[in-house]
């Protein structure tokens, strides 16, 4: 059969793969971001006791490839007898780790959480001291200062860098087929293994990732315009007489 026939026959696999890719990207992003906020606060704390564990975590996750992390969680943990026994006995939480889906989610979540923590910590650290002083001068409580000054100010620095991380994670999920998951890339690999048509197989997957990336970029740009509009430099000339 021709490649086109093969594509028309097997394209549902690509759609299933796309759906899995979306899950493998959005869930870690949401959970990772939620976890990154308290972790970032700890990361910039002056006390070593608070910041060191977080720093160690981010050091390891950012210093090693996500592929290695995924392999450790999936194949590495599965090697241990106590884990295998836990699976046989049906212990609920550990049983999740038997499923490659949850292993991938765990690895991706930890990874993106670490990166997001550092991005957020960096954005918070870069807060101009004047803003902190002004908040204190106004008599704001710690919580109010965080809520009204520090976090919004950090958002301006955070959002561009984080949008990059979102795209990088989306692309990073393409390694999921290394642990038997049939995500978008996995569907392409299966198609290729069946029909030996590399261009059709991978160009189609590439095009789909590209559309997703573009969609994210458009959304981020719109969000930046809307929410950070008041941070943008002056768009109109100064009024006369000022």
């Amino acid at each position, binding site marked *: 059969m021709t490649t086109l026939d093969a594509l028309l026959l097997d394209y549902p696999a690509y759609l299933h793969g796309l759906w899995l890719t979306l899950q493998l990207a959005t869930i870690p992003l949401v959970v990772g971001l939620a976890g990154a906020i308290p972790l970032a606060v700890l990361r910039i704390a002056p006390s070593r006791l608070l910041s060191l564990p977080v720093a160690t975590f981010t050091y390891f996750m950012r210093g090693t490839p996500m592929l290695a992390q995924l392999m450790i969680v999936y*194949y590495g943990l*599965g*090697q241990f007898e106590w*884990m*295998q026994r836990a*699976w*046989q006995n049906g212990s609920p939480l550990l049983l999740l780790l*038997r*499923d*490659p889906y949850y292993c991938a989610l765990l690895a991706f979540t930890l990874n993106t959480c670490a990166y997001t923590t550092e991005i957020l910590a960096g954005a918070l650290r870069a807060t101009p001291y004047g803003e902190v002083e002004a908040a204190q001068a106004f008599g704001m409580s710690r919580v109010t200062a965080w809520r009204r000054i520090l976090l919004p100010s950090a958002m301006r620095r955070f959002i561009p860098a984080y949008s990059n991380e979102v795209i990088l994670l989306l692309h990073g999920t393409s390694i999921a087929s*290394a642990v*038997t998951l*049939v995500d978008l890339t996995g569907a392409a*690999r*299966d198609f*290729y*293994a*069946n029909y*030996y048509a*590399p261009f059709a197989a991978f160009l189609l997957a590439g095009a789909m990732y590209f559309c997703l990336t573009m969609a994210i970029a458009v959304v981020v740009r719109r969000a930046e315009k809307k929410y950070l509009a008041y941070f943008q430099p002056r768009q109109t000339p100064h009024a006369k007489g000022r």
Partner: protein
Amino acid sequence: MKKLLSCLVVFAALCTGVTAATAKEWKDIRIGYEGAYPPFSQIGADGKPSGFDIDIVQALCAQMKANCTLVQVNWDGLIPALQAQKIDAIVASMAITAERKQQVDFTQKYYNSPRRLVAAKSSPIKDLTPETLKGKRIGVQRGTLGDKYATAYWLPLGVQVVKYATQDDVYLDLRAGRIDAALQDAAQAYTAFLNTPKGANFKFVGDPIVGTTPEQKTLLGEGYGIPVRKGDDDLRQQFNQAIDAIRANGTYQQINKKYFDFDIY
């Protein structure tokens, strides 16, 4: 008349010249192997390959008096590498199937072994009936005959076919309990897994799968051969002759005995 004769002479000379050019004798052959399929081909800690496939190919090359270079290629990169002319032949326990014959030409078989299912001794899977298999997770190596058989005949029954990049990964997950059973070559499963300490708690389930319908038999093929590029008929014949020769002079049997205590041909 003279002119016609001279034309005929030139024509005859050209003919022999042409056939001599195409029926070439291959002296330098690049052979692709997998290296992750014990006991047929594996790579030791020193980076050197060894195994049944490796020994056979070395014997064949000695027989053909050819200079063979062994090139390691990942399983799913073998046929593409052949087609892209990175290698000239593949000795990686590749089964001769009608589907593969569309991409490559095969020599005669150099061994044969059916598919067989492996599961834990304590597993509820006792046979290969649709009722038993339904809902189970069966591991296969992506792109192998086991993969194709399971996908074609078991997937519609509600079986989950889980695909791995290498056979060893299948065993890793089988031992970890992530898959309920594994479908692969029987000789490989026996020698590399069941007969070793890591496979101590596992056994074969059901009979060897050789196909019950003509359609199944076509899918399952006729043994393992050496793929060469389509059109490289001279190389194919060279290999065929060499295979016959090493079977005749006992070299094949020697190698067979080294790895298996049964006849694998």
